[in-house]
Structures are given as structure tokens and as C-alpha cells.
């Protein structure tokens, strides 16, 4: 995105990952009606609510963290691990906890190298998250699930040079995820709730895949807003 600030940070920090998730919470809230409408046409209608509710929980957990001693806020993995726990523990349905697995793998990858975590760790975490979600849900690309957005995102991150600035690589990942999510529109679902609705799901993009694209896209927006701070 051309709006990427020239002074973009080269590594992830606590502040950037917290802002990323906070921005995604805002996005999830604002697109909840659209995601719910998609899921009502093709699934069981609870995805938008679960995602927005989960991210509201993440925002509350991050707010609580901001009052914690600085020692608890020294790693970019902390906001990701916090979000993972909220999604795994407190979100119902199926897609929400699967989202939690992605966040858990991102947190783990970032935690291996917290001082210099960047594109290399994001690529490793996204690939591990996609693998975990596929182990659990047994979906392949083309089954019309969030895997259709996540696998292209992981591939896009892997293709970036390891020292690419994270905003740039996540931007690439968002574009690839968005393309994958759009491509689910004409598919017939083979996994997930939408698989029971047969051709009713045709013409409707998978809401889980859309949400994955929005997650990666939120980093760009978060950086912009961080840089607009006084």
C-alpha cells in the first residue's frame, strides 16, 4: 500500500502487534453485519458475531495488559498470545477457535525471536497456523473455508525476503488472502457448515476466508494510525 509510512518499523514490537489486533477488533466490529449476512446465506449465521465478540474480548484483555508492569509488555508475542487464549478459550462455534490456533502459532513463532521478530517469524507462524488448522479441520484449498485465504497468505509471506519490513510483507499476505477469499465465491463448500447447504453457498464468499484477509490487512491500517499519533 502506498500509504505505508517511510519510517515503518523494521521489527514487530509490543505496540505494533497490539495496535494491529486493536485495529482488527475495530474492523471485525464494523463488518459484523456483512459477515453475518454471508454466513446466514451459506452457514449457520454465527461467524460474524463470534469474531466480533472474540475481538472485543481481545481488546478488553489488551486494555487490562496496558495496566500491567512494563515487564509484561516487552514482547510482540504477548498481544498475539493474549488474543490466542481468548479465541481458544472463550469463542464458540468452530471457526473462532480455529482462528485461535493461527494466533497461537503466530505468537509462538514471534516469541522465538522477540527482539528482532519480523517477516521471517510471521511467515513461519502463518505456515504453522495453516498447518494446524488443516490438521484439525481437514480442509484443503478449494473446500471453501478460511484455509482458502490462509494458505495463499502463508505462501506470500514465505516468498518475501526474510528482512522485508513487516508492513510490506503483511500487505502482500493480505492481498493474497483477499484474492483467495474472493475465489471462494464460486465454489461449492466441501467442509464446514456451508457444506450442508450445497449450492446455496455458491455466489457467496466464505466469511472465514474474508476475515483472514481482513486480519492481515489490519496491520497496514494499524501502522498508519500509530504514526498519526502526536
Amino acid at each position, binding site marked *: 500500500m502506498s500509504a505505508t509510512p517511510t519510517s515503518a518499523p523494521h521489527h514487530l514490537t509490543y505496540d505494533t502487534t497490539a495496535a494491529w489486533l486493536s485495529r482488527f477488533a475495530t474492523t471485525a466490529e464494523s463488518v459484523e453485519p456483512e459477515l453475518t449476512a454471508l454466513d446466514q446465506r451459506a452457514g449457520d449465521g454465527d461467524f460474524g458475531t463470534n469474531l466480533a465478540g472474540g475481538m472485543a474480548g481481545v481488546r478488553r484483555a489488551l486494555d487490562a495488559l496496558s495496566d500491567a508492569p512494563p515487564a509484561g509488555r516487552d514482547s510482540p508475542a504477548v498481544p498475539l498470545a493474549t488474543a490466542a487464549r481468548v479465541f481458544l478459550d472463550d469463542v*464458540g462455534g468452530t471457526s473462532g477457535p*480455529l482462528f485461535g490456533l493461527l494466533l*497461537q502459532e503466530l505468537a509462538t513463532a514471534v516469541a522465538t525471536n522477540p527482539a528482532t521478530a519480523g517477516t521471517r517469524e510471521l511467515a513461519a507462524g502463518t505456515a504453522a497456523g495453516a498447518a494446524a488448522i488443516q490438521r*484439525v479441520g*481437514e480442509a484443503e484449498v478449494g473446500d471453501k473455508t478460511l484455509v482458502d485465504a490462509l494458505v495463499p497468505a502463508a505462501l506470500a509471506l514465505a516468498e518475501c525476503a526474510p528482512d522485508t519490513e513487516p508492513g510490506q510483507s503483511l500487505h502482500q499476505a493480505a492481498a493474497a488472502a483477499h484474492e483467495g477469499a474472493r475465489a471462494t465465491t464460486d465454489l461449492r463448500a466441501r467442509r464446514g457448515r456451508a457444506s450442508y447447504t450445497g449450492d446455496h453457498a455458491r455466489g457467496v464468499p466464505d466469511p472465514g476466508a474474508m476475515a483472514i484477509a481482513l486480519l492481515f490487512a489490519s496491520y497496514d491500517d494499524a501502522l498508519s494510525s500509530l504514526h498519526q499519533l502526536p
Partner: protein
Amino acid sequence: MPRYFADSAESIVADALAGFASAHADLVSHHPDHGYLRTRNRSPERRVGLVSGGGSGHEPLHAGFIGAGMLDAACPGRIFASPHNRQIFEASRAVAGPGGVLHIVKNYTGDRINFGIAAERLAHEQIPCARVLVDDDLATDSEDIVVGRRGTGATLIVEKILGAAADEGRGLDELAALGAEVARRSRSLAVASAAHTTPGTGGRAFELPDDVLEFGVGIHGERAEGTTPVMPLGQLVRTMTTRLLAALPDTPRPRVLALVNGLGATTSLELYGIHHALTAALDDTGVALDRSLTGTLVSALDMRGFSLSLLATDDELLRLWDAPARTPAWPL
């Protein structure tokens, strides 16, 4: 909800869990924060914790089989709904032995996913975890069914045999392999003359004319692929038995362990009559009935129906089946 003795569809599971915990306080403890029940007694030899669970409405499965010689913990979901991964994760963490934890999972998409997410979380904490998938329902044995056969009555057989094996101190891989073998050697088939009452609506899950049976019914009110006219019980049981025997793997000597299981509203009087018919059907085919168990053990709320499960057995499986168990509902 006029037909059940419960205040509401919302409270029926929670009230039952609280009651179960107090009725069997000597055997199990209830952990309402994380939504699981666990045993108070466990063989000191046991190195691997056994965890099962699934939707409520199948009582006494699974909570009734927590205890020495069987499960270490059970995770009840809402009526016919998978437990949350957090329940499974917390229960597994609580009962994992030095050899880890084994999940016994009925083959349903929600159960597979939630146990799978819990397994990923356990891996993150370096707790070894493996899964036995029970998929014994012959009625769903079709290439058109991508998700595979459903898991039903044989789950109890797997839980009993693995419980005994776990008490011998066997490791995770060995138990997982044994569980897969028991599942491979087990098939079940169910019929119903009336559907269960859906708690939310108070009505029957589906309607059947008086003169037909739902043949191959599921345990959640899933209708069967077809119905069959009411026929003499001996003929019905023989038809079911023949199909089950044909689906079992070949063994050197044809011998089986049988579970005659009520689906909730079938009386003991009827179940023993069914057992009598089963004995005759096996006699006709020259198959030895090594052991059997009759009762309402894997139910489907108040469905008027029964299931037959057969396990192609051998001396080692029988030895494990015969090992003592002490749980709220194990009848032997």
C-alpha cells in the same frame, strides 16, 4: 418442554451434571469452571489419561464410565452438541499421565474439530496426545458419505477395553493402536419405532407411522436412509445380525462380544427379548457369543429404539473386557 422432568431445555444438562456429581461423589469430581468430570480413583500403574466426551443426551455415556478401569475424565457438551475445546483441553491437562493423554472420539465433525483443537493446544504444552476415532455405525458405511461412519455404541466397548489396558501401564502409542483395532473390529446398527423428544420444542424429532421402523437411525435424531415394515422381532434381529457379521473383519474363529443397547425409551423387558433373539440368530450362523452386555448405555434421549454392536473378539480383548471396573454406570 412438557415431556421431560426438567425445568427447561437450558437447564436440563447443567442440573443433571450437578446431580450426577453429588449422586456419585465417592467416584467422580465435577469441575464446573472448565466443564468436565474426573475420576477420584485411578490405578497407580496408569501412565496415560483417558478422556472422552461429546454431546449430552447419550447418558450414561460418557460420564457414567468415569472411574477405576475406564475413563479418567469426560467432557459433556450441550444436548447433542460437541464439547468446547477448552473443556477437553482442561480435562486433558488435569488427567494426563507421564505418558500423556488419549482422546476417545466418536466420529462426528464437531467432536473431531474440538478434540483436534484441544490436541493442538496440548502439543503446545508438550503434553503427548493421541486420538482413537470410533466409527462403528454400519448405516453410514457409504462411499457417498465423505465424513465416514458415525461413532455410536462401540464407543463403550472401546472405553472399557482401553481402560483395562491403560491400567496395565501401557504407553500412548500402544493404547492408540489397540483402540483403533477395537474400532476396526466393531460395527453397530440401530432401529427405532419412535424418535426422541427434542428438548427445545417438546415435539418428536421426526414422525413414524405405526407400522414401520426407522432402520439405521442415528443417535441424534438423524433419520435413517430408509424404513422397514414392522416384522417379527426374531426376523428383525436376524436381519441386523447378518448385516453386522458381514461387515466384521475376518477372524480365525468367528466369535463376538455383543452389546444390546437401548436408545432411551426401550424397556429392559424388551432389551432382554432382543438379546434372546440375538442369541438365536448367532446360533443359526455358527458364531460364538463370548460375552454380552445388555442395557441402556449409549442412549439418544428418549428414543424408542435399540442398537446392536458386535466386536470380533479374541482372548486378549476378552481378558481386558473382563478386567474389573468401578464407575457410576459400569454394570459388570
